[in-house]
């Protein structure tokens, strides 16, 4: 079971790098969607005595939310606002990729020094979480368009979710579903805002959002 889980987390780490190197917005959104589906499957794989209905509900909700609902909202925003598909990085693709790879390596190495419980130290969950959070930061800081920043925020949230999997047994279902709901509402709101930014400024460049007006 740990082996399969580690492979999944490894694929998630790989998708982080795809998100950093990808040059098109739809690719970025779909990468984040695939990542969400993989994260949704993880609770089912984690070792537990009996797979209860709560766990299954969390898994289904996560897959539906992160894998279908949020990406479709983002793709719709992309279509409605008629945005150019190029990502327009502030930080070039090669530096982002190298930074992300370096961050992933550092996450794996640093986890060796963390005082983790034995069953957690054997999995890649902690390095995967750290790497995803870092990737999210790079995407948030290194991209110009609002939609790619949303994707950065989602990757960041995926990292936090990976951390949450460590406490799967003790986190109430309510907290999990609350986080998922927050993210969905956030993306929904951003989808509307993106449309407004595009209408007002004829561009999604967040660098233009510097002046406050009534």
């Amino acid at each position: 079971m740990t082996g399969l889980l580690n492979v999944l987390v490894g694929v998630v780490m790989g998708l982080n790098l795809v998100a950093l190197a990808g040059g098109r917005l739809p690719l970025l959104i779909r990468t984040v969607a695939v990542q969400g589906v993989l994260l949704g499957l993880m609770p089912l794989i984690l070792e537990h005595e009996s797979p209860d209905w709560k766990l299954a509900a969390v898994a289904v909700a996560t897959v539906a939310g992160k894998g279908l609902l949020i990406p479709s909202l983002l793709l719709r925003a992309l279509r409605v606002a008629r945005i150019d598909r190029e990502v327009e990085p502030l930080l070039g693709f090669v530096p982002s990729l190298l930074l992300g790879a370096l961050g992933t390596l550092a996450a794996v190495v640093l986890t060796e020094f963390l005082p983790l419980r034995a069953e957690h130290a054997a999995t890649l969950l902690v390095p995967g979480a750290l790497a995803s959070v870092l990737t999210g930061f790079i995407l948030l800081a290194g991209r110009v368009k609002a939609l790619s920043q949303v994707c950065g925020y989602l990757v960041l949230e995926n990292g936090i979710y990976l951390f949450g999997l460590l406490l799967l047994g003790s986190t109430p279902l309510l907290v999990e579903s609350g986080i998922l709901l927050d993210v969905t509402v956030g993306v929904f709101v951003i989808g509307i805002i993106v449309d407004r930014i595009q209408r007002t400024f004829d561009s999604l460049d967040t660098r233009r959002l510097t002046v406050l007006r009534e």
Partner: protein
Amino acid sequence: MSEIGLMLLRMAVWLGLAPLLPGLINKVKAAVAGRRGPPVLQLYYDLARLWRKGVVLSTLASPGFVFGPAVAWLAVVAAAALLPLGPLGAVAGFRGDVVLMIYLLALARFATAWSAMETGSAFEGMGAAREVSFAVLAEAAVIAGVLALCVQSGRLTLADMLGESAGPGAALLGAGLFVVLLAENCRVPFDDPNTHLELTMVHEVMVLDHSGPLLAAVLHGAAVKLLFFAVLLVQAVLPMGHWPAGTALAALAGGVLLVTVGVGLVEALLARVAFRRVPLLLTSAWVLCVFALLVAWKGGGR
């Protein structure tokens, strides 16, 4: 079979079978495009034809123009001699031969770039600059991949190292080395071997002024290099040392064939990427090899 005979057999495999690969790639490309294509043995005919022809030498060129292809051919063949052919073994092998292999490949590249610039043609200098700048990144990926194999097997000899597989990171290493194979042999996403425009050529433009036996040496060296990388890729991924000799040999031949067909398919189905995207692609290959190294180090390394 005596040791000498086995030695000759290995060299014969490297030198004799290498020109098959470009022919196979062209056949696959033709099949995908719905054409009949040139015969698989076309490169053999070309080499025989070029060998009989004379050499045109520029009055500007120093003897380096002739030495370049010769040194490059020798270096590539020497690197191939270090690489084991599955159960057939390597022509030569010693502790740390993997470092020599990397340097021999670099020497071959240096010699080709050197002879390209001998005639003073602007195009050839440009091609050499591109070839060398791609190679900087591709070489880093090769070194990372070889390091992953070293860490995985705990050995420094190519024959021992490649007998083991790359372990759980084999898929990563295989993908990384395949991209490196495409870049090092100037295949499609990096360079188009069929292009007729000097401005966009990379490898072809470097050998524009070479003719006759010199061009034959360049072409044959390129074929050996392609076979070299295909064999390296297959052996890095498959744990051949643990299989009986017949199975391993069949797996090696099948793997090389598969890689060749893969190159042909990539060439037929993909367009060449823009020059400014090439570093990203090669950096991705390097990252793949580095992650293979990481996997080898974290799990299963001895």
